[in-house]
Structures are given as C-alpha cells and as structure tokens.
C-alpha cells in the first residue's frame, strides 16, 4: 500500500504550484483555474485522511467542498464577465476598482 504521507506530499506539491500560479499569472481566468487546483489538492488530503482514520467524514467534507467550489466558480466567472463588460480587459492588474 502507498503510505498516506505520499498522498499528502503530492497534495502539498499541487497546492504550491497552484499558489504560485495565483501570484504569477496575469490572466484572471488562469488565476481562477489555479484556485480550483488548490481546492482539489485539499480534497485529496481530506480523502487520504478519510482512509487513514477509517472515517467517512472526510469524504462528506469533500462533497461539500465540491459543491461550494462549483458555486464559487460560477459566481466568480459571472463577476469576471460583468467586469469585462465594464473595462474590456481580463488583466488582473487592471481590475483595481478597490484602490484607495
């Protein structure tokens, strides 16, 4: 059997890659994709621990995370489209209406 810690390491790697992507990319859509990737890595961690402790709560939690992630992507993309109507750009650096 594959030890749980291997899954956890894999999850950590994917999370880091997602985090770097969020910081480094300019296109807002790519950033949303990276956020989804980070969420998925957390899902992997939860399921690995569900198997480790023989407890289904981990999997239930993942179910919820998926539901929330879906809703969040939908709303986030809607916001992005609304902003695009306004400014005609998806460059994250130009989305700065909250500036002082």
């Amino acid at each position, binding site marked *: 059997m594959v030890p749980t810690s291997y899954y956890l390491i894999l999850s950590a790697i994917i999370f880091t890659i997602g*985090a770097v992507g969020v910081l480094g990319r300019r296109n807002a859509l790519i950033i949303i994709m990276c956020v989804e990737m980070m969420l998925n890595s957390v899902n992997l961690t939860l399921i690995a621990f569900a198997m480790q402790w023989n407890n289904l709560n981990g999997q239930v939690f993942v179910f919820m995370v998926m539901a929330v992630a879906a809703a969040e992507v939908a709303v986030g993309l809607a916001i992005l489209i609304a902003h695009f109507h306004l400014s005609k750009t998806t460059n994250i*650096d130009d989305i700065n209406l*909250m*500036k*002082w």
Partner: protein
Amino acid sequence: MFESVWLLFALPAFGALIILFAGQWMSQKVVGWVASAAVAAAFLMSVLLFFSLTALPAEERSITITWWQWMTIGDFHVPAAVLIDPLSVTMAMVVTGVGALIHIYSIGYMDHEPRYQRFFFYLNFFILAMLTLVMSNNFLGMFVGWEGVGLASFLLIGFWFDKKDEMYGWYADCGKKAFIVNRIGDFGMILAMIMVWSTLGTVVFTELNEAAHHLAPATATIICLLLLLGATGKSAQIPLYVWLPDAMAGPTPVSALIHAATMVTAGVYMIIRTNMLWHLTTDAGLVTAWIGMLTALLAASIAIVQTDLKKILAYSTVSQLGFMIAAAGLAAYGAALFHLVTHAFFKALLFLAAGSVMHATHGILDINRLGGLRAKMPTTYRTFLIGAAALAGIPLMSGFFSKDAILVVELEKNIALYLVGAVTALLTAIYSFRAVFVTFHGQPRDQHVYDHVHESPGVMTIPLWILAVLSVVAGVINLPFVLTLDRWLEPVIGEHEKIPLVLELLGITISIVIAVLGVLIARSLYLTNEPWARRLTQPFSSLRKPAEQKWYVDEAYTFIVVSPIKAASGWFARVFDPRVIDGAVNSVGGVLSDAGEAVRKLQNGAIPAYALSIFLGVVVVMIYFIFAG
C-alpha cells in the same frame, strides 16, 4: 448678645445684595442711603458688642462663636467662626464707623457718577470682607477676608476702568498693579500659614496661644518673616509699597476708606493678632521695625516734593504705616493699634477734605494750580487744617499722642530707630503743613480754577466735621501713663511694658519741638519765603530730583522684575505656545494623519498584491506552528 454677632456681617451683606439686585429700580440717593444705613447699623452692632465685652471681667473677654465647620480633612480642622475680643471689636468699630461716614460722604461725592449702584455695592462688599478679616478666629478665615479686601481694592481702584491720563496711565492698570503686588505678599502669608499648621497643628488663634510655646525660635523667625512679607504687601511697606501711590486713581472715598483707614491696616492687625508667634523671635521683630522705619523715611522724603494733593497723602499713609509696623515689630502692640485708630480718623479726614477740593475744582489737585482756597471753602479748610495738625503731631491732637507713643518705645529700645523716627516726624510736619499752606493760603495760582470753586454740600461736610472732632479727641483712648487702650488689649497681647518716666518726658518734649519746628519751616518755605529756611534746606537740594522721581523705585522694579517677566511671557506666547504646545498637539494629529496616509497605500487595489500578502501570512503562521506551536 454675642450670639447675634452674625448680624454684624449680615447687615453689609444684605445691603450689598439689595443694591446688587434691586439697585436698578432705586434712585441714586436711595442706593447711597441704603448702603450707608447698612454700615451704620453694623457700627451700632459693633458698639453693642463693645459694651457687652466691657461688662465681662478681663480674663473672659475672648468669646468664640462658631457657625459651622468649614473644612475637616483628616486632622485639619478649620471652623467658620468669629472671635470677639478687645482687638477685633476695636477694629470692627473703626472699620464700620469710619466706613459709615465715608459711605455718607460718597452720596454727595459720587452724585454725577453713572455707575453709582456698582460703587456702593463694591463699598458694602469691602466692609463685609474687612469685617471677615478682623473678626475671624483663624488664619484661613482671616485670609478669606484678606483676599476679599484685595479684590474690593482692585475693583474700586480701577472703578473708572475706561479712563486714562498722564499721571496714572490706564486706571485699570493701577488696579492690576495693586492686585499683583499684593499677590506677592499673599504668597508669603500662605507659606506662613502652611508652616504654622505643619509645626503646630492648628490655625485657630486661641489655640495658637498655648501651642506657640512649642515652636523653635528659628522656625518662629521664618514664619514671622513670611508673615512680614504678607504685611508689606497689604500695608504697603518696603519692598511692596509701590501700588499705593497708583491706587490714588480710584475715587477719593475709596482712597480714604481702603487706602488710609482700613485695608492697609490689615497688615498691622495681622501682626498684632499673631503676637504669640512674634514673642518668640526678637530677630524678626527687629527686621520688621527697621523695614517700617525705613519705609517711613523713604515715603516722607517723597511726599515732601509731590505736587498732587492725593499723592502727598498717599505717601504720607505709607509713611505712617511704617510707624505702625515698626511699633508692632518692637512688640508695642498697644501703641501700634493706637496710631492705627487715630491715623484712621485723621487720614480719612484729610482724604475726604482733598476729595472735597477735587469735587470743587472738577478734578484738579495739582497744588501748583491751587492756592488761597480758604476764603472760598472755609469748612474744608478748617477740617483739613485739623487733620494736618493731627498728622504733624501738634500737641494735644490725637496724632501727637499716638505718634509719640511709638517714638518713645523706639527711644527706649533702639536709639537708631528713634533717630530715623524723629527725622521722619520732622518731615511729616513739614509736608503736611506744606499741603495746607500751598493749597489754602496765599494767592490763587490759577484764576480760572479759583473762580469756579465752591464749598461742598452738607452731606459731604458733616462727615468731615465728625472726623475732625474725632481727630482732636481720640488721643484720650491711650494717654501716656493712663494707657487705657493698652490695658483694654491685655487679654490679647499680654502685659504691656512700662516706659521709664524719664524717657517718656524726654520723648514728649522732643516731639513737641519737632512738630513746632516743622510747622515753622513749612510756613517760612512756602508761605512767607524767608531766607533762613532756604539756607537750612540748601544742603538737601541735590536730593530733590531723585525724590521727585520717587527714588526711581518703580523704574528699578520695571527693569528687574516686570520687563523680564513680560519678555518671558511674550516669548511663551509667541514662540513656545504656537510652536511647542500647538506643535505637539498638531503633530499628534499630523502623525496619525501621515500614518493613515502610509497605511492607505497598502490598499492599492492590485489583487496580486493582496494574494501575496495572504500567502505570506499563511507561510508565517505555518512556520510559527512548525517551530514554536
């Protein structure tokens, strides 16, 4: 009988309140008579107290009526109480009696004054404060009265606060000067009170009588010197006498009441009242005596060359107060009080007569513009002459007996003081009769002024005559060898010393010679212009200029004290306050504002920056939990 002593205070208080609240609906005459009636009733009350006291045997003549406990802090107890004993009753009679006469006089003097309601309110308030001062049974009550009369003095000196002229400057500034100079004296008094309480544990005079024996002489000296500082402020001695000549900017009744008869005697009263402390230290007493006599000499030398009639009388007051303070310093309290009482009569008389002249000439008191007034103002002339005779010490006048009492004590105790006193007495005789001769005798120097002069109305001249009679007969209260007043005061001041017969007679003789000589010198210098007098005064002519400039004391004070303080305050106002204090306050706001500006820059709206900061925070927390959590 003694229980109703509260009436003594209530009468002037009610008078003041009535005038304050209802005065605008009363006519000027009514306001004046209400005020005078209040003080006259207070005088009757004090006379009743006097007779009640005489009914008691001598050992029991000290009654304390406590109204309420004013302050109780730990073991610091101060009652609001009245001490009825010979000293306080005597002072009360003088204050209310002379005060009533001056109130009546003011009805006539201030008849053209638009602010008469305010004037009579202030006068009644002054009487109330002065009574508090002399009748209170403890230091703090006395100090309340002390401050109260200082306030009344300030208000009344600057009564015509919108007036300004060459001699006084802004009249309001004269009031300010009086108040501020007095404050320096008050500082000494407060320190003395604190020292008394901290060393003896009580501030009540009757308790101090026993407790004072526990004082070390050095402590007593310090306390008495501090008390002396207070006395020099209120009673206008060196170094704090400079306010009294400027106080003449006030209306003449004010000068008569406050700056001749009553307020300025508060310092002398205070020393007599605290004699239990002064008995322990002869050094402080000697200092006091020297300060008194030097002040007397200095003031007399200035008075002799002054040209304004009121200023002559002002410096004369400073000089006579010096005699009283000197007597108090030499523990001759009876003589000091005697001179206080007679001086109240004849100095008030002189001031009121000068006021009569001022009323007639519409404000002109420069003796170089007056002259020959005795033909047109006979009553004023005669009463002024009586007052001047008492001041000069003409034999059998009251002033003769009282001044002689002081001089004889000096002759017995300290010959140097006596010599200074004798010279001052000579100068006193000269300047008082100079005032008489130049103002009332000879030819009028200004015909225009002379034509408009008229005698004053009855309401002004009757008080003059009453005071004149008193100035003549008041000598009986303490004749030499009979010493009624000294014996009357024994419950307060202890046994009086007996002066040897030889010295007494010697003193009397010399005083008579000095008085007569002074009159003759004055007559020949100012009336008949005889050469022998001029040859006599020739050696002193070089001193004339400095004396006319008041020995440059005011200028010296301005240079040493006033200008540096003004410069320092100016610096504080222009530099320190705007830059440092406002700067500190503003920079608190400025710092916050700049910090907010800096923090605001964090909100740059750039999402990657926010993401980075979140990520950074996560990493930091993670590291913390790995290594320290």
